[in-house]
């Protein structure tokens, strides 16, 4: 029996497929292709309008080389200040409200009825988009930063309570029990047994939320809830791309600074 080189080498190695079941694999691939074809077919594009727009798009990109901070300087400054105060107040109020809700939404601390109520608040706050909440608040409380402040506080509650509650649920039981064993009251137990364990995470999340709130405050103005968004919207409507570029640069720089700051603070506390 002659042994050929091929049989000695055996069959070549093949990369295993990401999804091993062939029926599922092909089903998913065909489903995805059908969906994509249908989806692309349903997108109506007015190509002549797009072509016309390219010119404007180029102007927008070119505007970044000559951002105009001065001609609408007063509006920009006012909008930025409003955005910042909305961010600061809503973050502080949001944190203050989310801490009790987070304690209530942690299943290892709260009794079941409290747990369910707090989880319900969290899921309502998370399911509603900020812009939609802002529209409702503007309709109810009138135009201005108050509506934005309320919107951002409401959104902060859902975000912070959920993540903080998860951290409380993951905490080390032994430390909390040790405090219990000293005969501490409930408040002392929370303050000395639970709080030190979740504090680094709380600070990190708060800084992160401050960052998100600033970014969100930049769009709330589109629906009349105060902040830099209103100025930005006006600039877009007038095709003043120089001013738009200036505002966007300010937003990006502020977000970068906040991210750097929060990174530094998180690095220190964790």
């Amino acid at each position, binding site marked *: 029996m002659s042994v050929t080189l091929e049989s000695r080498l055996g069959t070549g190695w093949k990369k295993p497929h990401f999804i091993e079941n062939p029926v599922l694999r092909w089903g998913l691939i065909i489903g995805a292709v059908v969906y994509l074809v249908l989806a692309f077919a349903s997108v109506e594009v007015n190509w002549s309008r797009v072509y016309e727009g390219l010119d404007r798009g180029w102007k*927008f990109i070119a505007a970044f080389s000559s951002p105009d901070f001065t001609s609408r300087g007063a509006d920009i400054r006012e909008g930025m200040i409003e955005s910042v105060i909305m961010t600061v107040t809503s973050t502080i109020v949001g944190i203050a409200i989310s801490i009790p809700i987070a304690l209530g939404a942690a299943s290892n601390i709260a009794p079941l009825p409290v747990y369910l109520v707090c989880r319900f608040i969290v899921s309502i706050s998370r399911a509603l988009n900020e812009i939609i909440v802002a529209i409702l608040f503007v309709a109810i409380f009138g135009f201005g930063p108050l509506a934005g402040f309320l919107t951002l506080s409401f959104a902060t509650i859902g975000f912070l309570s959920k993540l903080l509650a998860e951290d409380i649920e993951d905490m080390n039981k032994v430390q909390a029990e040790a405090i219990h064993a000293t005969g501490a009251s409930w408040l002392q137990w929370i303050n000395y047994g639970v709080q030190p364990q979740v504090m680094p995470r709380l600070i990190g999340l708060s800084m992160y939320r401050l960052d998100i709130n600033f970014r969100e405050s930049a769009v709330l103005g589109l629906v009349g809830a105060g902040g830099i968004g209103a100025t930005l919207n006006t600039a877009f409507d007038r095709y003043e791309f120089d001013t738009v570029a200036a505002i966007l640069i300010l937003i990006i720089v502020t977000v970068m600074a906040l991210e750097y700051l929060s990174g530094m603070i998180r690095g220190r506390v964790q």
Partner: protein
Amino acid sequence: MPTSTNASGEKIWKLRTRNETLFRWALWLATIIAFYVSWMKISDQTTWFFVYDAPRIAADIGGRAWPPRWSYIDQLGGAIWDTINMATLGTIFALFMAVPVAFLAARNTTPSKTFIRPVALLVIVSTRSINSLIWALLLVSIIGPGVLAGIVAIAIRSIGFCAKLLYEAIEEIDSTQVEAITATGASRWQTMAYGIVPQIMPAFAGIAVFRWDINFRESTVLGLVGAGGIGLQLQGSLNTLAWPQVSLILIVILVAVIIGEWVSARVRGAII
């Protein structure tokens, strides 16, 4: 151990030293002052009469909005389809663009740490820090209103997010596997395909589904600035003060978002 002495000379345990306590006290003071100053500014710009009147207005709007106009729902089917498409196609385009950016931004795969990495990081930061609604506003003014503007807006906004999470995943890979592939004499591309990609695949799939969920929420409101989807119907109803339609649209959005979250949680559970 931080202690303090009481009147009779006994030492008492304290949680923090004096300097720590002072620092914390100063931090609290600064926070309260910042809050007070900001609050006064907000208060100045608020017409408090409207706020006192708010419960009545809320009840009034609630009364107008209820019951929702259920018959309007057959006009929302197309809008929901557009919304889903904006989220899905936007996420797909974003992933196509995010992968190269992520590889250029990760410390261990970037071709040049001094030149290319900062550029990639700048792309990530600038696309991430601007909300998709602003991108939509911009794109509507550039390429005209419609679903396409929404798709592109979602795609651009998601590049930074996906690339950031992806490059962090790339930086955390196990370098021994990459070394093993390199040791077989694999080329640069082969190392990437067989050493790096399999390691980041689960993270990639997770990021894609996670971002799709966020994009779906965001695409429900992009219509407010003219970028298609169910937000367009919402804007129309708000402008004509058709509150029963508004309440129906809000219910549809809420249900759709909850279903979207459920789907993405299931898919993520299946992948990871």
